[in-house]
């Protein structure tokens, strides 16, 4: 299999207005920087974006908020940026908040062909409104549906032409889950290696889940909260 495309512009071909897109990453860690830049350039509008967070004002998904390309965010934690807050409060941006584990598991469910899952997260809260509650062994669970996106954009550390992906440290986060949940999954990687160079036992995302892959450029990898200790 050879799923290599030349660049981010090629990789996002076919993304049209009003599509649902998944974007991997946790905070600014492990986000598909090149795909986001290409989306900004493409000018597609009305995006429903499923991503755990919404970036900061001038980086990550914040860039797509600045240009008002996002119509709706589905996330677990947002608002590290002022523009997001402004758009949300003015009603320009729709926001749906989902517990983080529910978000992750709904992606997994999609990748594993399971139409719904049960989780106790949100039972007895406003998140449960309108949802089916079911008791198993004396404990209540919400039934939550799998979700799928028209495109999923993920970032990995290494990849090969077959689409196999390996992530690095906590840049893994939602990436392998969203990679499984895209009708079309686009992966950008720091290193694109030859077939056979990845140890089959170390592959996190088997290539079957990935449709297009390219080597990303100039990763900024911005740190959101630089916390350090002093040598004692």
């Amino acid at each position, binding site marked *: 299999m050879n799923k290599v495309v030349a660049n981010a512009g090629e990789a996002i071909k076919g993304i049209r207005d009003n599509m649902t897109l998944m974007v991997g990453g946790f905070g600014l860690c492990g986000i598909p920087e090149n795909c986001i830049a290409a989306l900004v350039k493409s000018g597609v509008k009305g995006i429903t974006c499923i991503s755990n967070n919404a970036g900061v004002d001038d980086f990550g998904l914040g860039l797509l908020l600045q240009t008002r390309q996002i119509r709706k965010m589905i996330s*677990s934690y947002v608002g590290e940026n002022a523009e997001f807050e402004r758009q949300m409060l003015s009603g320009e941006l729709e926001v749906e908040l989902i*517990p983080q584990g529910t978000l992750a598991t709904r992606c*997994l469910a999609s990748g594993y062909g399971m139409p719904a899952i049960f989780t106790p997260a949100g039972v007895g809260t406003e998140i449960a409104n309108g949802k089916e509650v079911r008791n198993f062994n004396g404990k209540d669970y919400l039934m939550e549906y799998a979700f799928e996106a028209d495109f999923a954009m993920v970032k990995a550390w290494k990849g090969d032409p077959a689409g196999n992906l390996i992530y690095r440290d906590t840049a893994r986060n939602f990436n392998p889950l969203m990679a499984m949940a895209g009708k079309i999954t686009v992966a950008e990687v720091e290193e694109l290696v030859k077939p056979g160079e990845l140890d089959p036992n170390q592959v996190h995302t088997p290539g079957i889940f990935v449709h297009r892959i390219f080597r990303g450029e100039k990763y900024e990898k911005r740190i959101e909260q*630089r916390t*350090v200790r*002093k040598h004692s």
Partner: protein
Amino acid sequence: MLDKNGIAKRIAKEVKDGMYVNLGIGIPTLVANFIPKGFNVELQSENGILGMGPFPYEGEEDPDLINAGKQTVTLLPGASIFDSAMSFGMIRAQKVDLTILGAMEVSEKGDIANWKIPGRMVKGMGGAMDLVAAAKHIIVAMQHVNKAGESKLLPECTLPLTGVRCVRKIVTELAVLDITPHGFKLLERAPGVTVEEIKKATAGKLVIEGEIPEMVID
């Protein structure tokens, strides 16, 4: 009366050797500093770490290695990395022994509110709803009263809930309390704090049985 470090120190005494612990943002994070040296305790961070270590030395920060609070961290020997589904999977399956988190309000039934204030910008629940709904044992680190002097230990939460009947223990600047079928049960007073002061600061049902000892935190 305890300061933030005092609350963290007292909570650290609840951490037992061999536990897997998830620490929330704020005071809970400080608990890590007070876990006894000889203990084998592994910290879980819900973005996908077991065996989380301290902050990196300056210049050694790695953007690919952060905790759930988005802070740069390190890994200890024996650490492992996993995706968010497995991370919340191990939380949901109660493999994590102890979760310590902050709260805006706790009810005498053990309900907790810590994610949303109507009328204010809502940032989201992050992993809190998953953690409180699934954790085996939850300790809340919080202030007993808000800035207006109103109790945050209530008969019923007034804010939108994060989870129902899930909190087991609360440590505040004034006291250590358990949630029991009869309400908040006072276990310990902070140094210099009287039972009367705790009574006044607690709006929910408070159970006081016998002499309440002053807590020992060092």
